[in-house]
Every structure is written in C-alpha cells, then in structure tokens.
C-alpha cells in the first residue's frame, strides 16, 4: 500500500492527476442540477463509448470491401460466436445514441440552458448532433446491403444537385461517378477515423465549455438570466448550495447510465441486429429499401415533396434548418429559462417531435409506394370472390394479374397508393369504371394499352360487384331513381 501511494505520488507530481480530478469530476455544481432531467447528456456520451468499444470489436471481423462486406456481416451473424450480438449491440447503441441525444437537446432547449453564458456549449452540441447523424448515415452504409446501396444512391443524388459543387462532391464521396469499389472504403474511413476523431474533439470542447461555464442551475421562473448579474449570482449559488459533481451529482447519471446499458443489451438480445437486408446488387429490383429510423422523416419528406420544389427544398431547406438550430441562442435573447414560462419553446418542441414522429411513421409505412408483391402474393379476400359469375371471377384474376392490387387495397390488404376498392361499385358506375381504367386520371396511369377489351369487360364486371352490404352498387341506385 505504501508503495502504491509512492507510485501515485510519483505520477501525480508529474501529471497533476489530483488537481485534474478536483477540477473536473470534483468541481462544485449547483445542487439543483443533480436532477433526473440532467442525465441525458452523460447517457449520450456513454452510448458513444459503447459504440467505440463495439465498433472496435466489429472492425476485427468486418471487411470494408464492396465484394466481401456483405459476406463478412453474414459471417458475424451466423458463424462468429455471439457475433450477431455484437452487431445488435452496435445497432441498438446507435439507435439509443440518436434518441438520447435528441432528448438531451430537447431538455437543454426547454430549460433554456443555451442562454448566456452557454451559447457556445449549445453550438458545439449542435455540431455533435450533426456529427452523430453523420455517423448514423455512414454506419448504415457500412451495413453493405440493399438499404445501404440505395441509401448512398439517394444521398449522392441529392448531393449531386448542388450547383457547381455537386459533381466534384459526388466524385469525392463515391470515389468515382457511380457507386464502386472505392465507395465503401471512403465511407469506412469516414465512419471509423474522420467522424470519430471529430466527435472526440468536439466532445472535448463541449465538456470543456460545460466545465468553464458551469452546469446550468435548475431554471427558476423568478430569476431570469441577466447578463450583468448572472455570474455573481451563479457563483453565489455555488457557494451556498454547491456540491462536488463526483460523487453527488453523478449518482443519478450512473443509475440512468446503468439503465441505458441494460436497455441496449436487452434490446439487442430481444430484437437482434438489423439485417444485412439482402445483397447490395442493383439488378435485384425486388426490394423496398428503407433507411434506419433516424432518417425515416427525411425519407418521407423527399418522397412527398412536389417534384418542382425538390431541388430548392432539399438543398436550401436543410441549410436553413441547421442554421436556425445553431442560431437558437441568438434568436431567443430573453432571460427567462423556465419552460413553464416559455410556451412558444414548449410548443416548438412538441411540434418538432410530432412532425418528426408523423413523418417517420409515413416513412415506415410509405403508403406512396406500391406494394410490389401484392398481385401474386396476397390472396383475394373470399368475400370478393364468393358468389361471383365465371366472367366476374376471371375479371378478379385480371385484377390480380394486371397488378391493380399493388396500389389498390382490398379487404385491408394491398397497396395504399390508390383508394381501396372495397366499395368502388357504390362510388362509380360501370361506365365510370371503364373510363377510369382506360384513361386513368387522378394519379392513376391509363391502362387502355395494357388491357384487351375482354379484360376490361371482365375486370369491370367484377368491380361492379364490389360494394358493402349496406350500400347498393351505383347502377341499382340510379335505376331506383329512374323507376321509383
């Protein structure tokens, strides 16, 4: 023991370990900041550490080459003992990291912690947010599957629209004009070296700023921030109620951190890794690629934008959004920090999460995409077949064969791009149905050239039987009107 002490003293003298600890972990923080609301930042950092550790382990097996990456992922999933679990922890760690980071940002925003004197802390945090999304995007591409392939394709198509810079940018990222052998290596370098290095650097800055300005006190509605008096008041607060960060304030962080670790390990064990979702082969058109959840809102927005607004909104929109995010401390110059006195801030957070949530739901269900397997994979509901004549039955077969089902649901199954046809006969007469099928209209293509006259006749004969029991088909309604 004596020797250990001597050894420590030797190092302490040279490295200043004791004073470093006292200045960082031991520094005094306001007692009110030891709140459950203040645990999300450290939890995000914890996720990052987990990502680094699992990432290093993954890199021992993963082969960053376009030809072998997919195989090495399958090797991890099926051959390496617990390799699948490693992938799952890395995947769920990333999900938790993005989610906790968003919650941390929302909390900081709601508590007005970005206000004087912590503007730079907010800005460095926004940088970390962007870098984390960069990690998420590049990581998703290292999972070299169909989602990754089309993800790069879409990302680069967007980047390629940038005026002047588009083409060189795409060349630089892809290592050529198209996705090729160099592409994956570039994303590997970004994911493993460049972005991680940047994140570590900015985290250091972020923590340095937190130490320098002190952890913000729990917002008191009656004591708004006043630039002239804030420092004196904060120092007074520390003097009166200050407690060392370690072990007092960190206790809740540790408890929450343990819960986060359990949640990540649990989610990884129960839900497993993501994919790899099919080999990244552009000749396999039978695929419906989808980004991971953090990019689903963007995916939905891009799908829903009217074509003529695309270039402007996709290139200018994010710039404005990010600029607004960075500018938050300068746009809101009031001193009030308590969320209960800042209705606009609360509403803004609710609105942002509602919009992102709705868009993510739309992105996941993507009702604008036809369901390409419906026509041959989904049996028709028996109610749409029972009691039909031979002509109507063959019309139902035409309906399936011409892939109408891919866009039009029946009995709750099928695509959602067009309206469901369960009650189509109650809405349209036979003539209207023929017209709609032949000429299309209202987002539906014209099928006149795809259908022979007998096919149209059979199809419409069958569609005229599609009406709910409580509502007669249109031709009966008109007949009744004519002959009361």
């Amino acid at each position, binding site marked *: 023991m004596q020797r250990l002490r001597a050894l420590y003293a030797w190092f302490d003298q040279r490295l200043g370990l004791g004073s470093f600890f006292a200045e960082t972990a031991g520094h005094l923080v306001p007692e009110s900041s030891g709140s459950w609301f203040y645990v999300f930042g450290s939890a995000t950092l914890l996720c990052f550490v987990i990502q680094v550790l699992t990432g290093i382990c993954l890199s021992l097996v993963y082969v960053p080459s376009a030809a072998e990456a997919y195989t090495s992922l*399958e090797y991890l999933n099926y051959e390496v003992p617990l390799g699948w679990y490693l992938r799952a922890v890395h995947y769920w760690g990333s999900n938790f990291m993005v989610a906790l980071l968003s919650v941390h940002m929302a909390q900081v925003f709601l508590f007005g912690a970005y206000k004087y004197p912590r503007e730079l802390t907010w800005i460095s945090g926004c940088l970390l947010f962007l870098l984390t999304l960069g990690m998420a995007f590049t990581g998703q591409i290292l999972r070299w599957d169909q989602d990754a392939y089309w993800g790069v394709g879409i990302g680069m198509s967007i980047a390629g629209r940038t005026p002047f810079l588009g083409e060189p940018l795409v060349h630089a990222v892809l290592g050529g004009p198209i996705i090729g052998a160099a592409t994956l290596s570039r994303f590997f370098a970004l994911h493993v070296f460049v972005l991680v290095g940047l994140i570590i650097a900015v985290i250091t800055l972020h923590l340095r700023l937190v130490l320098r300005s002190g952890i913000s006190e729990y917002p008191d509605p009656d004591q708004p921030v006043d630039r002239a008096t804030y420092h004196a008041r904060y120092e007074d607060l520390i003097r009166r109620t200050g407690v060392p960060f370690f072990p007092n304030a960190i206790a809740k962080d540790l408890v929450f951190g343990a819960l986060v670790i359990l949640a990540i390990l649990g989610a990884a064990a129960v839900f497993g890794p993501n994919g790899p979702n099919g080999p990244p082969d552009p000749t396999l058109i039978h695929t419906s690629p989808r980004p991971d959840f953090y990019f689903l809102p963007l995916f939905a927005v891009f799908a829903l934008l009217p074509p003529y607004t695309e270039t402007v909104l996709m290139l200018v929109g994010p710039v404005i959004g990010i600029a607004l995010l960075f500018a938050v401390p300068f746009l809101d110059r009031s001193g009030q920090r308590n969320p209960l006195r800042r209705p606009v801030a609360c509403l803004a957070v609710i609105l942002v999460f509602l919009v992102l949530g709705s868009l993510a739901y739309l992105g996941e269900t993507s009702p604008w995409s036809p369901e390409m397997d419906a026509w041959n994979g989904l049996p028709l509901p028996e109610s749409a077949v029972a009691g039909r004549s031979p002509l109507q039955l063959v019309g139902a077969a035409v309906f399936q064969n011409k892939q109408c*089902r891919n866009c039009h649901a029946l009995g709750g199954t099928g695509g959602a791009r067009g309206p469901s046809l369960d009650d189509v006969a109650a809405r349209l007469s036979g003539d209207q149905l023929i017209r709609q099928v032949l000429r299309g209209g209202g987002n539906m293509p014209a099928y006149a050239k795809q259908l022979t006259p*007998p096919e149209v006749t059979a199809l419409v004969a069958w569609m005229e039987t599609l009406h709910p029991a409580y509502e007669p088909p249109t031709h009966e309604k008109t007949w009744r009107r004519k002959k009361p």
Partner: protein
Amino acid sequence: MTSLHVIVSIVLVIAVAACDLPGRPTQAERRVRPDRVLDGAALFESHCRGCHGEPGRLAPVRDLGDPVFLAVIGEGELRRVVSDGVAGTPMPVFSSAGGGPLTEAQIAALADSIFARWATPKAFESVTLPPYSEADARRAGAQPGDSERGLAVWKDYCAECHGPTGEGGGGALRLDQGSFLALTSDQGLRSIVIAGRPELGMPSWREHEGKPPLTVQQISDVVAWLASLRRPFPGRPHSSGDLAAGAP
C-alpha cells in the same frame, strides 16, 4: 466457491442463454437472392396464391390444392404451364427464359412442392383418368371434338346449372359471355369439365349426380361446343353482333 467461479459460471450462463435469445438471427431470416429461393412453399406463397388462393379457399382461378386436377395434369405439364403461362389468359409466363421471375430450378421446386403437399396419387391408382389435353384424347383414339354432339352433352350434363345454351340460370353461371370465353383457353375449359371447380360447387367429370361419368369423347365434344360460342370481337359492346346478342 470463489469469486472466479461465480464470474466463470455467470459468463457460461450468458453464453449458453445467448444461443437461444430471441434476437439471434435464424437461417430462415437470412436474406436469399430472389432467384435462389428454392423453398417451394415460399415460392407458392409469393407467386401463386394471389390468384390461385390457399388450397380449399375460394379464389378467382383454379384451386391448386385440388387432387383431381393434379392427378389429371401431372407434374410435367404443370411445370410447362407455369413456365410458359397460357397466352391470352391471366396466367402469366413465369420462366426467366420467357421474361418471368422464376428459374427452371425454382419452377421444378414449386411444382414438386405442390405435388408433394396436395397430390394424392394413391387415390387415383384404380381410376381411369380422362386424357388431360385434346391431343392426348386423340392419341387415345377419340375423334376430334364436335360442337353439335357437344350441344347434346351440354343439355344432358350442364344445362341444369348453366342454362340450355350457356346463358345461365339467373345469370350467375352463364358461360356464353364473349369476354369470359376470350380469357379462358380451350384447355382451361377442358380442365374445368374434367376436374370441376370443387370449391365453387362445379362437379368433376365423374360426379354428375345420377349420370354416368363423361366419356373421353363427350369431354372433347362439349369443349368444342363451348369453344364454338367464342365471338370474333369479344368485349366490344359496340360491335353490332355482340350488341344484338346482348352478351359482351
């Protein structure tokens, strides 16, 4: 029991438990290229049941789980129909050679699985099955189908449900509509006459109540009669002939 023992046993328990954790990817979840799927049942689900439905359930077209039909068509012919489709009808070409989605091996696996699951060859060992096609019937010594003789067979066997000349009883079962006939091949009509559509209540060639089974010749004749109802311009109510007949 030292702490080392405890740690080692905990690690072992986790390692063993990890083998059966619900998140562990199974081989079944492993993504296979669509052209390498050789599981016949999966291929049936993804390529056939949209129109043919699940066995025993109502569907627009023939139930592929019907053992009579499977016994009559035989596996080789079924493979050919899946490969080449039936021109003019909703049955598409499935072979990749013809632009379809399935390879030869996949079509073989699909047909194998249909026969392995639903065919009952033993039940037909002592049954003389009618020849599947008109050509087979000719080889078996039958004369070419004759529509006049066919009309007589029709009146005897079919008119009760489908009407004296195919115009149907109450319209539900009419077969004389040009569009129905245009979208059904002669072989399709013949298969229905032979194997029936049990899920729709249409009897097979040997199940007509109170009547002897249809002979090989009768089958050819009645199909010839149905084929004679085909119209030159089906599905066009504007052509005067069809308008007069009132049956597009």
